[in-house]
């Protein structure tokens, strides 16, 4: 290595160090500002709840983690600004959609003195963390981890979202009861717990309701070409294609179908939510796509409209269902904390049993519907079908 290149490398390295130090200082600076802002209206009976949010801010599932992080933050800001009895300290820990890191996050949150957890956003990390939290007695409320495994055998674990089986069953029922075509094709991701979970219950329920499943095809993560799956559905004469998958592959399926001029009714689940936010995606392809989701961003009620407006202002995007779930999760936790009489100085283990009892009694009206919880941690609320019209989600039945 010549001396000159060597010098350059040393300088670049020094520059990077400087940047790092700058980042550190700026992040420290931010931290100091937060308590100052919340401490301002200090009254003696103000109760501070320390809520830790665990979700993937980076990695393959970052879309969901960022949505839940933002949604929860909005709820926390609103509660703090309203100046009521409660102040929320809401901090997100990045788990990169990995069980090992998620447990690290959980431990770090406990080190930081968190009283309750909103999370984790994705299923597999959630199962790992909730098992540990059940041992430690820490209360958890996940906005979006939808597998039944998440709540199985754990009394400390509650869900805001529907479980996967509930979505599969509800979708089949919806198709059967609303006069939609009964010749159905299913395309699902057989390497994905969420997709497989919905598929399995959907097919069982479809059989029961005399829906004719004429084509079942699979794909895996990172699949880029869906010609085989779409052609199979077309050749089998399916008039409705059920897509229990995330919006990324769904957008590619819609593109493939448009190329071969195949126009069935498309029916998705909550993972489809977000398809309109994909950069470079031709929104007209999604015209007429039906999806079953508890949240639609264009709902007319005041709560939803306020939430959507704030979200757009702060993050410059339309909130999806994950953001709405996290928003509701924070409000649900505060409602439960009020019922349980949680105070600032309680430890996580002291809160847990009280919150569990309170959770089964409360009824929360959120942006994803009116929710109540059963003892096994699963939520009760009604899903609504939305249809995409002119590049927007519109209620299907109204």
């Amino acid at each position, binding site marked *: 290595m010549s001396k000159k290149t060597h010098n350059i490398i040393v300088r670049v390295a020094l520059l990077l160090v400087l940047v790092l130090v700058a980042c550190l200082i700026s992040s420290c600076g931010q931290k100091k500002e937060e308590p100052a802002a919340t401490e301002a209206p200090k009254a003696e009976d103000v109760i501070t709840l320390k809520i830790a949010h665990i979700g993937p801010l980076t990695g393959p599932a970052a879309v969901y983690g960022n949505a839940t992080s933002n949604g929860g933050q909005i709820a926390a800001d609103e509660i703090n600004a309203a100046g009521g009895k409660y102040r929320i300290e809401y901090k997100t820990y990045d788990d990169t959609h990995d069980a090992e890191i998620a447990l690290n996050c959980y431990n770090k949150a406990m080190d930081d003195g968190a009283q309750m957890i909103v999370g984790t956003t994705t299923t*597999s990390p959630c199962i790992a963390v909730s098992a540990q939290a059940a041992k430690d007695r820490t209360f958890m409320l996940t906005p979006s981890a939808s597998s039944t495994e998440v709540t199985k055998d754990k009394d400390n674990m509650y869900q805001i979202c529907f479980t996967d089986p509930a979505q599969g069953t509800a979708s089949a029922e919806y198709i059967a009861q609303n006069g939609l075509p009964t010749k159905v094709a299913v395309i699902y991701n057989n390497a994905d717990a969420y997709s497989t979970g919905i598929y399995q219950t959907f097919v069982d329920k479809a059989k029961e309701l005399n829906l004719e499943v004429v084509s079942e095809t699979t794909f895996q993560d990172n699949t880029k070409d869906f010609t085989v799956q779409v052609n199979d559905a077309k050749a089998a004469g399916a008039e409705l294609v059920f897509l229990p998958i995330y919006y990324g592959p769904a957008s590619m399926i819609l593109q493939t179908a448009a190329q071969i001029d195949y126009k069935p009714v498309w029916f998705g689940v909550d993972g489809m939510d977000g398809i309109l936010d994909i950069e470079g995606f031709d929104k007209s392809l999604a015209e007429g796509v039906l999806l079953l989701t508890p949240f639609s961003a264009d709902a007319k009620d005041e709560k939803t409209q306020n939430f959507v407006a704030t979200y757009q202002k702060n993050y410059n995007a339309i909130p999806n269902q994950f953001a709405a779930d996290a928003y509701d999760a924070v409000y649900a936790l505060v409602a439960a904390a009020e019922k349980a009489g949680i105070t600032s100085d309680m430890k996580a283990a002291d809160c847990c049993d009280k919150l569990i009892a309170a959770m089964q009694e409360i009824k929360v009206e959120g942006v994803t519907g009116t929710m109540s919880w059963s003892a096994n941690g699963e939520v009760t609320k009604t899903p609504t079908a939305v249809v995409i019209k002119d590049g927007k989600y519109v209620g299907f039945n109204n």
Partner: protein
Amino acid sequence: MKAKKKKLIYNSVTFGLVIAAFLICQLLLSTGGMSRSFRGQLIPICCWIVMAVSLNLVVGISGELSLGHAGFMSIGAFTGIIVSGWMQRAFQMEDPVLRLVLAMVIGAVLAGIAGALIGIPVLRLKGDYLAIVTLAFGEIIRNLIDCLYVSVDGQSLRFGFLNNKLPGDLLMNGPNGAVSVQTIATFTAGFVLVIIALIIVLNLTNSRSGRAIQAIRDARIAAESVGINVTKYRMMAFVTSAMLAGAAGALYGLNFSTLVAAKFRFDQSINVLVFVVLGGIGNTMGSMIAATALTILPETLRDFGQYRMLAYAVVLILVMLATNNPLARAFFGRIFAPVKALFRRKKPAEPDLKGGDAK
């Protein structure tokens, strides 16, 4: 003589480091001086150390490039989980230590068999084929496990492929991965595994076979010409490495209540390779230190918020620059000089008659 002595010192420092680290951790654990965050990382660190040490055997000592090391870990992990769950549910074997040992041994054996199956055809080839095949192997294993359903029905295990309608308790649930795993891994078990891995790897490296393996790495034709069975010795290194990865996987799998095959993606193999490269290829102690440091680092960088992984990358680059910079090397050399002198003083000034001694 000198080379032997140097090896002895290197080995004792390596073992000493591990034992000292274990004792310090135990002390901190018993006095409660360790944060939860760090306590939770102890067992994964042990697993990643064994992964790095075993991959170093292939990459550093045997000189092959393996890109599917996470695949072997995956086999070990899921085998371990199935064995442990089966023993507990079907045979009421409640003793966690016994189950853990059994899981690790069977995990190691199965991973070893997979290693042998791949090695038999591939290690006869020359060039980069091992890298390509191991890369594919890791992906194949992951895809197969995503379709695998296993349940315990009475005393027997039932397997289903893409078929989730199995009688009994599900141990493996397709893409949901292993579910309801009883976490029986302990830090002591991790420590024992690291020591065993070190004994195996260091002894193999310093044995007659180890010298044959290194001879093949350095000059394959010359080694063949003196009658060394090239395939046999390459197999020896490769299968040993796979077995250790399998054992580490079993320990890792039994540390979490759930495990999905996606954890052992290609990038996980690369991650382990990063440990090996950063620690210095062929340097067992270096692999160990790098694995530990790079597992802890992302967690300690949490205060950087969203710049965390950027900071991680910058640290990696800085370490690579620093270890290759003559100035920095001289600086570290000066720091460690007293330590080296300490060892040197013990022996009488031995006239270096032999001159060009191997390092």
